[in-house]
């Protein structure tokens, strides 16, 4: 480039006309600032479509958005207790727990590892058959859950209570080795200071069968 400068000074290697300005014109001013964030538009945008169809779809969209917030698929994380656990939490939070799923999918279509153990409400028909002794250890948790649900619900059936009473006594007998486990589960479940297995709410006074002479009857 330096060598050919003397000869034909204003010769460029490309066709100057294609640039868009002649030799004498000044170069366009260089940019001093970045281009504006919202540059002014040359042409206004076309107005939106209107009509019955459009309005209907608009209403549908807003309705879908609103109703999807109420479906059980809308998952809100349980609020972690940051400071002191307050008494009102039990009533305000609506029992938002992480480990329960509010709808029941078809577990056969999903991998087993996704199945969250939900606390099942008591099954009236199925329970009487599950009294096998060797399986009491496995049933302890269910029994404790059942006890708790029994307390929370108002209706109590007679026969169920008798079974529970018997199983509870079996639990008491076997409580030795698993005392700690029982303590933790019971206390966490009920949030009271009283240990469930010691609690006798007195409603089966007189309903006990006379075969059980373990406890003194006053």
């Amino acid at each position, binding site marked *: 480039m330096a060598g050919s400068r003397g000869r034909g000074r204003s010769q460029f290697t490309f066709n100057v006309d294609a640039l868009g300005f002649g030799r004498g014109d000044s170069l366009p001013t260089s940019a001093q600032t970045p281009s504006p964030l919202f540059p002014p538009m040359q042409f206004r945008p076309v107005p939106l*479509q209107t009509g019955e169809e459009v309005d209907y779809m*608009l209403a549908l969209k807003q309705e879908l958005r609103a109703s*999807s917030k109420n479906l059980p698929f809308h998952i809100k994380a349980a609020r972690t207790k940051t400071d002191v656990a307050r008494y009102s939490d039990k009533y305000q939070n609506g029992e938002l727990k992480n480990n329960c799923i509010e709808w029941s999918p078809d577990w056969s279509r999903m991998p087993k*590892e*996704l199945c969250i153990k939900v606390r099942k409400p008591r099954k009236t028909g199925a329970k009487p058959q599950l009294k096998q002794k060797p399986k009491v250890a496995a049933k302890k948790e269910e029994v404790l859950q059942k006890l708790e649900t029994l307390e929370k619900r108002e209706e109590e059936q007679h026969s169920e209570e008798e079974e529970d009473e018997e199983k509870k006594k079996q639990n008491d007998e076997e409580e030795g080795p698993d005392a700690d486990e029982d303590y933790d589960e019971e206390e966490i479940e009920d949030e009271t200071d009283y240990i469930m297995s010691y609690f006798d709410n007195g409603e089966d006074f007189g309903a006990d069968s006379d075969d059980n002479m373990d406890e003194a009857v006053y």
Partner: protein
Amino acid sequence: MTAQEVRLCGLLLQEHFGDVVEKVGTHLIRSGVLTLRALAHETKLPLDLVKKSLCVLMQHGMCAFGAGRRGPAGPVEYHIICERILHMLRYPRYIYTAKSLYGDTGELIVEEILQRGQMTMSSTVKTVADRLTHNMPEGQSMDYSEVVSAFSRLVETHFLQRCPPMASAESSSSGADNTPLPAVTQPTEPEDHPELVNSDVNLRWLNCIYSGQGKRRRSSEDGEADPRAAKKAKTDSSERGDEGIYWQVNFQRFHLHFRDQAIISAVSCKLDQTSSEIVRTMLRMSEVTTPTHAAFTQALSANEIFRALPSSYNIARPILDQYLTLLVDDPMEFVGKTGDSGGGMYVVNLHRALANLARATLESVVQERFGSRSARIFRLLLRKRHLEQKQVEDFAMVPAKEAKDMLYTLLSENLVQLQEIPKTPDYAPSRTFYLYTVNQLPTARLLLQHCYKVHIGNLIERRLYETKENKRLLEKSQRIEAILASLQATGAEAAQLTEVEEMITAPERQQLESLRHHINKLDSSENQVDETIFLLESYINSTQAPR
């Protein structure tokens, strides 16, 4: 998945399913395939929440699972199906189409199934019937059989399809109840199961439920049926007999319908109403016979078209022939002639029609953004492929300086590309041809990404911003409406009602009004952008379709 698409998916998940699912979903999209433990660890969410989110996503068909890299014995891996999430944009359109085709009943059926992902037929029918009864005047109730007939019509025309049954892994096919292994069930593709879209099988099924023989006849169809599900259904005698048969919306079919609608409206705009009716008849006749990604419909003879025309259009046979000739000669090439038997065999060129529609979209975008002269240059380049700068000025009949200016603007927006053709091995500028060109497919992709960006960045985020700014006001108005509604329900006097209404001051009312107006505008813009997105997506998919 481009960055814009990932952002849009995240916003859609957040809107419909909450923050937790959004976090899980976006992370899974970005990582590709993950196991449950890895996902929980990386998102730092509690395991139960992750499980719940995955259940929600799988219920809606947005997440799929499969045997991991270590084979069936290893942990299950999950991945997200992104198109399914993007289909959420179009839910109002699907529902409206169902309404226009099958009335209110069809609309409610499709709405229920869309909101819940997959449902059994009995629960759908029950919910829809209850909703319809609720809206009817007192004393009337919706007949289940009407809902059932609407449902079966939707299935017949393939708008609803059955969810593919899960094929159990080999080792757990028998005795699956007792194995403690995590049963990795493989989801199967709908294409592998022609019985899913075969309406006869399903109709026979539907009839047998509702004609009182409600007990399970599933064994004849689901050879690989889960024995677990079978056992479960036997014990629940109170349930209807269709456990495990889930129905989902067939999005492909809806998209084909939208595509047909677009073609028909294009024909009616370009030519006239009668030609669009002819094209509509042709498309309707070949609805179920044309495979999904076909480039042309099945060939139809002119005689068949004549017989199939709706009776309201009684045009004479020679006039039909003239119309068909016109359609074939039209430069848009919607209809093509493939033979002469039966009075002439005609096909609708689907892919070409889509390409033309996409091209029209591109041209109109350029016109609205840069003016009609730039649009003229753009159209010129589309037709003539490669042109030099001088030729552009001459052909477009635009003064040189303006032409340069417009070309450079289009170039900076990437709508036009520059192709260099050197005359000599060194690319000396004086000895190189510089040709301007427009490639339709990459430009369409660019525009599609623009649409996604517009949809998210401008529309959804702006709407969220506006809602957040005025949250206090919105909550107040909601509370007041609730109070009013309860007062009215308990029969309060007019004075009390006006007193409650005055709790919102006039400037607040105005603010609320303008807020609603803005949100409505943003929402309907979203719907409109989605139409463009659909068109461009169909065009791009048609070019990618397997031959």
